[in-house]
């Protein structure tokens, strides 16, 4: 196959983003995801393992790419994550949503907010009035302009990663981007399971 320069991230990672790990880490993994997409839920587990394995070497960023026409709850779920984020609980809600896919009707979303100890009245108000819709749309459009063509879509140090997102190939690609060379990772699955992922 011919090698070509693949699509690149057009909106750089910045203050607006939800970021886990050190921002100056040698490798940044950006995911465009949809909470109602079954492949994204599978990838969520893999990303958690990759985060464990790479530790401080990696920074992870999540952006919304809800396919609302095929996933009726993708948009409210994305906005629910943002509403939780407004109260400092984005990642907790992000994890809860993937772990409870596809139960995203309003009573479930409120139950998750309650479980996280959020101000549920504020949460409901924000989700119902669509306060976070522009932000979700901005994520989505930045994905479209970066060549996202399905979910999940990954960018490693700004370049779209089209390889397999099974744990080994993904970790190899991340390590190689981090400048650690193409060494083979030895995932400690037992440890990963203990960590609750």
């Amino acid at each position, binding site marked *: 196959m011919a090698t070509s320069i693949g*699509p690149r991230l057009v909106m750089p990672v910045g203050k607006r983003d939800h970021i886990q790990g050190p921002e100056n880490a040698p490798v940044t993994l950006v995911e465009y995801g*949809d909470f109602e*997409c*079954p*492949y*994204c839920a599978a990838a969520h587990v893999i990303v958690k393992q990759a985060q464990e394995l790479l530790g401080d070497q990696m920074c992870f960023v999540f952006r919304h790419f809800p*396919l*609302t*026409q*095929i996933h009726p709850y993708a948009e409210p779920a994305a906005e629910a994550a943002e509403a939780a984020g407004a109260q400092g609980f984005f990642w907790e809600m992000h994890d809860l949503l993937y772990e409870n896919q596809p139960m995203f009707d309003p009573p479930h979303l409120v139950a998750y907010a309650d479980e996280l100890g959020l101000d549920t009245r504020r949460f409901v108000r924000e989700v119902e009035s669509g306060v976070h819709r522009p932000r979700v749309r901005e994520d*989505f*459009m930045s994905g*479209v*302009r*970066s*060549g*996202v*063509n*399905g*979910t999940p879509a990954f960018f490693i140090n700004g370049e779209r990663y089209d390889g397999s997102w099974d744990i080994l190939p993904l970790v190899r690609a991340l390590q190689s981007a981090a400048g650690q060379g193409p060494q083979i990772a030895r995932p400690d699955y037992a440890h990963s399971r203990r960590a609750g992922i």
Partner: protein
Amino acid sequence: MKPLTTEKDVSSALAAGTKAPDFTLNDGPDRKVSLAELRGRPVILAFYPADCSPVCGEQMALYNEILPEFQRFNAELLGISVDGVWCHRAYKEARNLRFPLLSDFEPKGEVARNYGVYRQGDGFTERALFVIDGEGLISWSYVSPIAVNPGADGILTALENLSSKGVSNGNEYRTQAGNAGR
């Protein structure tokens, strides 16, 4: 396995500056769409191999999602494949698609052939995109590897270029095409 389509079977897609061949095709069992009727606004032709590929990484589902962005440019999106009207109807309903899916069904692939994107040996079309300006000239075309969803960035860039030049300014594209070897 040997690919059915060999190099010589694939004619090349019509390039920017070419007049877009007119067509009239069925959009479902009850409606026909003619390219000529859409004169005055940009048209996006999205040829794709077949209805019903995997859901979340699916080109038509993505375009359905981006439809409002295309509409900001007053552009009309037309999906085209060699599938029949009933197949298109089922696919459209299953994916909640809100734009026409045209059947290049009889004579099979004729429109695709006119645009240079029919895969003779395979019997279906390339995954090819055309953006046509308000005067009926192709302003951008792209053929993606058959298994790769090309996304929408190229379309949006082409629509932006059109709107910055003035949608109906067909002369400019003729000039561009005439100077292509410069």
